[in-house]
C-alpha cells in the first residue's frame, strides 16, 4: 500500500477533501461518499480527481460510482424525495404513490425537475415499515401516506418556495 502525497497530482477543486484519505483503493468508496456528502452528487470533475489521486482509470471509478445505488451523477433537487419501495410499503400502495409523484412532478426516478426544486428517487427500503407507505424528504420521514396526502405535501413545499 502506498501513501501518496497530494502534491504529486493536481486536484484543483476537491484536493482538500480527497487528500485527507490514504491513497489506496479501499478508500475509493469512502472518498466518493464524502464527495457526495458535500456536493449532493458526484460531479464529473470529482471523478477525474479521485481517479488521479488513487491512480485508477476513470472507468473503474465510474464503474464503482454507477454500481452502487447511493451515488448520484446528477444534481438532486432542493427537495430530494426518496420513496420507499420496500415490501411493506409496496403492499400498502407505494407504487401508486410513485406514479402520482411522477405525474405531479413531471419527472421519473433518478431525475431532477427543470426548476431544480424536486428530485425523485426510489429506495429499496427505509426500514420504517410500521408507518408504511413512507417517503423521505431531505432526511425527514413522512408516513401513512396516500395519494391525496402526498400531493398536498408537494403543494406545501411549493408554497414554501413562493413565500420566499
Amino acid at each position: 500500500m502506498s501513501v501518496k502525497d497530494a502534491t504529486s497530482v493536481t486536484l484543483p477543486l476537491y484536493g482538500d477533501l480527497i487528500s485527507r484519505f490514504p491513497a489506496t483503493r479501499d478508500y475509493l468508496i469512502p472518498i466518493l461518499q464524502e464527495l457526495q456528502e458535500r456536493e449532493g452528487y458526484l460531479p464529473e470533475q470529482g471523478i477525474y480527481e479521485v481517479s488521479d489521486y488513487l491512480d485508477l482509470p476513470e472507468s473503474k471509478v465510474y464503474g464503482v460510482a454507477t454500481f452502487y445505488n447511493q451515488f448520484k451523477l446528477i444534481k438532486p433537487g432542493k427537495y430530494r424525495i426518496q420513496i420507499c419501495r420496500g415490501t411493506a410499503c409496496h403492499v400498502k400502495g407505494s407504487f401508486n404513490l410513485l406514479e402520482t409523484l411522477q405525474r405531479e412532478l413531471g419527472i421519473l426516478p433518478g431525475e431532477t425537475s427543470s426548476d431544480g426544486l424536486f428530485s425523485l428517487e426510489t429506495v429499496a427500503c427505509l426500514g420504517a415499515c410500521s408507518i408504511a407507505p413512507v417517503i423521505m424528504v431531505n432526511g425527514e420521514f413522512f408516513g401513512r401516506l396516500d395519494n391525496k396526502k402526498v400531493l398536498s405535501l408537494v403543494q406545501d413545499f411549493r408554497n414554501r418556495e413562493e413565500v420566499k
Partner: protein
Amino acid sequence: MSRVTEIVVGMGSCGIAAGAKGVYDSLLAAIAQGKMDIKVGETGCIGACHKEPIIEVRYDNGQKKLFGEVSEKKITDFIASECNEKVFNQENAFPEDYPYLSRQRKVVLSNSGIIDPESIVEYLDTGGYEALKRVLQSMTPAQVVEEIKTSGLRGRGGAGFPTGMKWSFIAASSSKRKYMVCNADEGDPGAFMDRSVLEGDPHSVIEGMIIAAYAIGAGEGYIYVRAEYPLAIKRLNKALSQAEERNFLGNRILGTGFSFFIHIKEGAGAFVCGEETAMMASIEGKRGMPRLRPPYPAEKGLWGYPTNINNVETLANVPRILNMGAKKFASIGTEKSKGTKVFSLAGKIKYGGMVEVPMGMTLREIIFDIGGGIQEDKQFKAVQLGGPSGGCIPEELLDTPVDYESINATGAIMGSGGMVVMDETTCMVDVARYFLSFIQSESCGKCTFCRIGTKRMMEILQRITQGKGKLEDLDELEDLARRVKVSSLCGLGQTAPNPVLTTLKYFRDEYLAHIERHECPAMQCKALVRYVIDPNECRGCTICARFCPTHAASGDAKKPHSIDQDLCIQCGLCYEGCRFHAVKIATGVPA
C-alpha cells in the same frame, strides 16, 4: 403518592419517523424552562412500532409505565398537568397483559428500548462486557469456539449455518493475519431487525464481535453497515470510541496479549453486498460482485487473508450465550434451531414492530396472538418471509413452527427475519413481479441467468398482470426459475425465483384468474380493474372530478358523476377521495 422521576423516549428510527424527536425536544424544553424537575432520557427501539412515539414513565417507587401514540400535544398537556397520567387516554395506554409484549422472549433485544444506547455505563450496568472479561481472563479461543458450538447458535443472516463450526474453520488457519467482519448490510426490503439492534444496543454487537475475533484469532475487523442507517452508524461510532476508552478494544485489551481494532465501512446501497464475497469486494473498494466459492472466506477472504463474517443478530447473541451458559441457551428453541429469533412484523398486520420469540413458535402465534391479526379485520392471505430470497406462505401452513428446517420445507426461507403480512387486497402475482423487479435492479449482472433469466421472468409476470398472459407462461416461468436457480453463482440468483415458485405453488388460482378470466381478485392490477361510480350512492359532490388528474371523472353538481374508462388511468384518487363510498372497483370483463 408516587412521583415521576424520569421519562424515557423511544428514539429508534421508527420512533423518530413517527414524531418522537418532537416529544423529546418538548420535554427538554420544559426542563430548560424550569417547568419540571425530572430526568429525561432516550432509548432505542421499544419494539412496539405500531404504538410509536412511545415514552416510558418511571416513578420513584420503581414502577414503570409505557404510553404510546404520544403526540407533541399530549406531552405538552402532560407537562402542564405536572405529570398527571390522567391526560393519557385508552389509546395511549398499554393494556396490563399485552400479548404483543408478554408473549415475546427477549434475549437479543433484552436491552433495546430499556437502556440508553449512547451510554456505555448503562450497558455495563446490565452486565455488559462481563462475558468479554471472562473470556479473556479464563478461556482459551478453542474453549470459546466449543462453547458456541454447544449452544447450537446458527447464523441469523438467513442461511442458518452453525456459527461455532464457521468459527472453527478459520480458527484452524495458521495465517498471521485474519479479519473479522460484521455483516450489517441488512438489505431485505421490509426488514429492520439489525437496524433496531444497532440503534438500541450497539455495544452488544461490538462485544460479540470482539469475542468472535478472540476465538478465531483476528486482529482487525470491519462492520459493514448500510449508509441508509445514519442513526445506527452514529451510535456505533460512539459505542466504538467508548469501548476504546475503556480498553475493551484496541491494543492489549484489558491488559491481555490480545489486540483488536474495528473499522466501520458504510455500504453504498447494493443488495448483493449482503453476500459475503461481494461484501469483501466492496470493502476493498471494488464493485460488489460475488465470486466463486471455494475458496471460502475462511481460507481466502479480505485481501486474500482468512476472514470470518457474521450477521448482527448472530453476534449480539454471543455475549448472552456466554453469560447464561451454552446449555441454558440451547434449552430455548427446538432440537435443531436454538435460541430466539427476532422478526420485524410489517405489512397488513394490526400490531407491527419488532418481535423476538423462541424458535419453534408457530407463524400463527406470531401473526395472530402477538401481532393481533390483520388490519381492519380483513382476511389473511399470506406471509412473506425472507424477502426477495424467500417466499409467501399461505393460511393452511400457518401452524408451521419457525425453525430453519420447517420454514425451508415450505419453499420460503427463514431469512434475516423480515415478515410481511398480506391480506385479501394483496395480489400475489403482483408480489412475485415486485420481487423480480427488485432482483432485476439488484442483480450484479455477472451470471447470465440471473441477469437475463429474471428479466424474462419479469416480462412474463408483467404480461400476466396486464391480462395478456397465456397458460403456457406458467410452465415457462417454472422452467426459467429452475434454470436461474442452478446457473447462478451466488445466493441472490439461486434464491431469486423463490417468490415466484411459492406463489405459483400456493396461489396458482390467482395466476389462473389473471390469465383465463382477466381478473385480479385483489383488485390491484391496474390493467384489470375499472373504477366506476354507483349512481345510486353518488351525491354529486364533485370531489372525484376535482381530484381526477385526467378529467375522466366528471358530472354536474348534485347529480351522479361518471368515469370515462378511456381516460381513466386507475390512479385511485377518486376512490380515496369519495366520502360516500360511491366509487367502486370492478375487475374482469365488463358484463
